[in-house]
């Protein structure tokens, strides 16, 4: 049914999500939307991992791997598109 590590992982991620949500509310980091999206995908994958043990195994397993794939794309895009120092300076200079 449920694996211990999966439950622990989900709990850790849920707690982390709360922390992340609270932190975002206080300090929004510009350009971090894709990072947050990737993190949410990881969370979704964990949830799907847990559900697949009790319900529609095929579907939720596919969704789990889809979520990992999406998380990978989001993090890659996030790292590539994140505005850097030089980019910022150029933007300021143009003004």
């Amino acid at each position, binding site marked *: 049914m449920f694996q211990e590590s999966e439950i622990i992982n989900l709990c850790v991620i849920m707690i982390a999500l709360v922390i992340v949500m609270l932190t975002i509310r206080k300090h929004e*980091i510009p350009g971090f939307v894709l990072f947050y999206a990737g993190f949410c995908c990881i969370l979704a994958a964990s949830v799907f991992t847990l559900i697949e043990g009790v319900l529609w195994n095929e579907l939720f397993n596919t969704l789990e791997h*889809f979520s*990992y794939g999406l998380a990978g794309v989001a993090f890659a895009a996030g790292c590539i598109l994140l*505005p850097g*120092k030089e980019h910022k300076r150029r933007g300021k200079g143009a003004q």
Partner: protein
Amino acid sequence: MNLIAFFDLLATIGFGTAILAVFFMRRISFDIQSRSLLLLSLSVYFLVSISNVLEHGEITGYFDTYEDYLEILFTPFFLFFLFSVYAKLNHDKRLAAEGALRSALEKAESEHSKLDAILAAIGDGISIQDRNFKVLYQNRVHKELAGDHTGELCYVAYERRSEPCRGCPVEASFQDSRVHKAERTGKTDKGTLYVEITASPIINQRGEVYAGIEVVRDITKRKRMTEEILKAQKLESIGLLAGGIAHDFNNLLAAVLGNISLAKTYAASDDKVIAKLEAAEKASLRGRELTRQLLTFSRGGTPVKKVMNINRLVRESSTFSLSSANVKCVFALSDELWPVEVDPSQLSQVVNNLVINADQAMPEGGLINVGTENVLISPGDPILLDPGKYVRITFADQGHGIAADHLSRIFDPFYSTKAGGSGLGLATAFSIIKNHGGHITVESGPGSGAKIMVYLPAAEGPIEDFPAQEEEVFTGKGRILFMDDDAAVRKLAQDMLQHLGYNIVLASNGTEAVDIYLAAMEENNAFDAVILDLAVPGGMGGNEAGKKILTRNPAAKILVSSGYSNDSVMAYSQKYGFSGIIPKPYKIQEMSRKLYEILGNCPKSP
């Protein structure tokens, strides 16, 4: 390839790209710590994805065992990464804020320095006080005037009071938000200080007065100048009156003194008569001194100046003026004294008056220190004189001193604290020195004696000798034309000149004198000398008559005479072409000497 394998491959490529981006792409602005945490968190799912991909290829046993634990590690790494980024972000923000603050502080400091420099450069004292009268700021001048009292309550610091001063202009401006002015006096080491205070409110954006600015201007010099002007005006009006009286009085004295001196020559062998006549002559001479002092106040009183070294005059006049046996003069006269251009007779009068004043201030005896020295007056000096070279004569007595109440009035005419004093001595001295372009100051306090300092402008040019007074009578020969409107003076002149051996013709006004002179010229019986009175009420005066005579005969020898020396002709007679002056009243000796000087051929009487 099934769908799940595709997603795993996608995840592997995605996380792998992200790791490469963090590694190699320079534009990612994380610090090393954030990068490391991000790499760790990304590596977790990169390994998980590889494990999944390998599973599809039936390759197992590399990460399967640790996959579940690896997944748990992702979240803490990611969280640490986020916090690290937050920390860096906050740090950057704080640095930026600190930079902005530092720059703002530097700007404010620069503005403050500029404002401070401007306020320091202003010649007025500036102070800012809050609503509780606490001094918030003082500029340099204000600190010099009132001392450094920043942070103290102004009424405590400046006035030693326990509550705000009555009529305080700053308090008034707090109440009605308007500008108020007030004048204050204070005692300093240099004497009384007069200041004008202008108070303005400082209003905030809500329209509330939260502080007051006080501008303090030192008006001591202006006050003193006003006092000097008032004093000069007072002297001028009194002088007009005095001059008028003195003129008539001098004509009377001329007759009295002249007749006495003549009578003395008639009664040469009768000692009793001579003694009485000398007593009368002394009284008349005192009267002459009094009228001279009165005349000094009159508008002219123009000094007949000579460039001279005044040491001898100061020494002789000081010694001559002493009447008390127990008072002595101690002299400290500079050997290198600059010459000054003065009227010796008037300066002698000044010295007489000041020494007599010092003498009378020491009824129990003492020393009068008389000194002369050169002084240079600079633009910043508090004395009311133009900058330049001056000679200072100092008279310091050891008397009881002058009370502060009397100090400002001692030069006022007719002001005296002595019983029987005329109040003319110091006023005359003041007026004479003013007419010479100089100044008199006094320093004194009760019990510390008085020190009077006379400043006279130094002069250039050759030094003329100071003439000694002689009492000899010079007889002579020749024809003299004498003009005066006063019959008593005419009669006196006739007797005097005849006694001296001259032939005299009299005239009562200028027109008559000119007619007589021209008629005599036509008859080849010209006059050797002419004596003309300057002031003839209602008729031609001596100046105009003299000009007419000189036009016809430029070699004519003319003496001008007057009992009222306000006329510049008396001061500058030679510029007008006259041979000399003979001020009224005069004695026979003075008349004979003047005629001897211009005619030059008269033998001295035995």
